[in-house]
């Protein structure tokens, strides 16, 4: 399934599978750098999903990934991402 990675300006970024998000806002409320926000758009199920509203703030800590009950979001540090082979 395609992962949607938004713009990269900080030390990390998040990937979101928009279509499985149920809009619970765990990731948004517990993001330690408060860089996530709800989208204005709805996904196919009618939920607002998280977007990286302040990309410069993301450190790729993946706390969002640990919280997400729907396996819809996860964070990565850019230095780890660059080490991994690109698919």
């Amino acid at each position: 399934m395609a992962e949607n990675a938004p713009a990269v300006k900080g030390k990390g970024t998040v990937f979101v599978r928009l279509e499985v998000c149920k809009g619970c806002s765990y990731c948004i409320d517990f993001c330690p750098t408060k860089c996530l926000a709800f989208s204005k758009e709805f996904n196919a199920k009618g939920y607002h999903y998280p977007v990286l509203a302040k990309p410069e703030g993301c450190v790729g800590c993946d706390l969002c990934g640990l919280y997400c009950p729907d396996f819809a979001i996860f964070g990565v540090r850019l230095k780890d991402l660059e080490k991994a082979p690109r698919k």
Partner: protein
Amino acid sequence: MNETLKAENPVLPYLRQDRLPHIWCPGCGIGSTVNCFARALTESKLDLDKVAIVSGIGCTGRVAGYMNLDSFHTTHGRAIPFATGLKLGNPNLKVVVYSGDGDLFAIGGNHFVHAARRNMDLTVICVNNSTYGMTGGQVAPTTPLGATQTTMPYGNFEPPFNLPFLAEACGAVFVARWTVFHVRQLIRTMKEGLAKRGFVFIEVLAPCPTLYSRRNKLGDGVDQVKYYKERSAVKDGADTREVGLSFQGDIAVGKFVDRDRPTWLDAMNRHYSSVLHDYHEVGHAED
């Protein structure tokens, strides 16, 4: 959007992706515990072909079906005796029981009590959402006093179990509690519990927004997780008599018990080796 960056969610290989999306409601905390469990499995370095997961019935009972492991979705309350047979049938398996509070402690209470007494080598993870979610929000043996449920429409007057106290009293060798807020701690404890031999009990408080939070005017799932954040205090080694839960009250979290006793199989092997000539040892005794 940066189209050149691609990565896969590290949790997905641990899940049966052909069964997703899962059935849990928006804001339900069970998925978060599964997320943590998958990461604990990674960190445990266990051979996943030798890890089996057994669930009972209910919302948490569906966990087995989503894990990409040998997985057994059994009958209501009976995950522990099934897991007992599985473990004794093949002692080389790491057997995890993953089920809910109603399943493990109401209909399955007797099995929990005896498996803990025997120190059966099982890792028991209980997602405690204080209610029967699958059937529509009835009172559970964990529902705090005063909470409203469909079968306690005027508020619950039955005292709930203090699960860590029960587990310790029955003989569990490892007893811990976290909430869905404490994801990093939960991963660490699950990893530790998976490495521990004997009857391990990990309670995880998780919101049921649909049938517990909303019915009690407590907001959504995330509001309940915020409550966990605000009212939890880490009390490692706490006297489990003191860690009972009350309606939206303080929550003691941490690792309460970590001790060693011979497992059922170790005790059997050791005893029979000493009293029976020509004893055929079953599986391994690692102590």
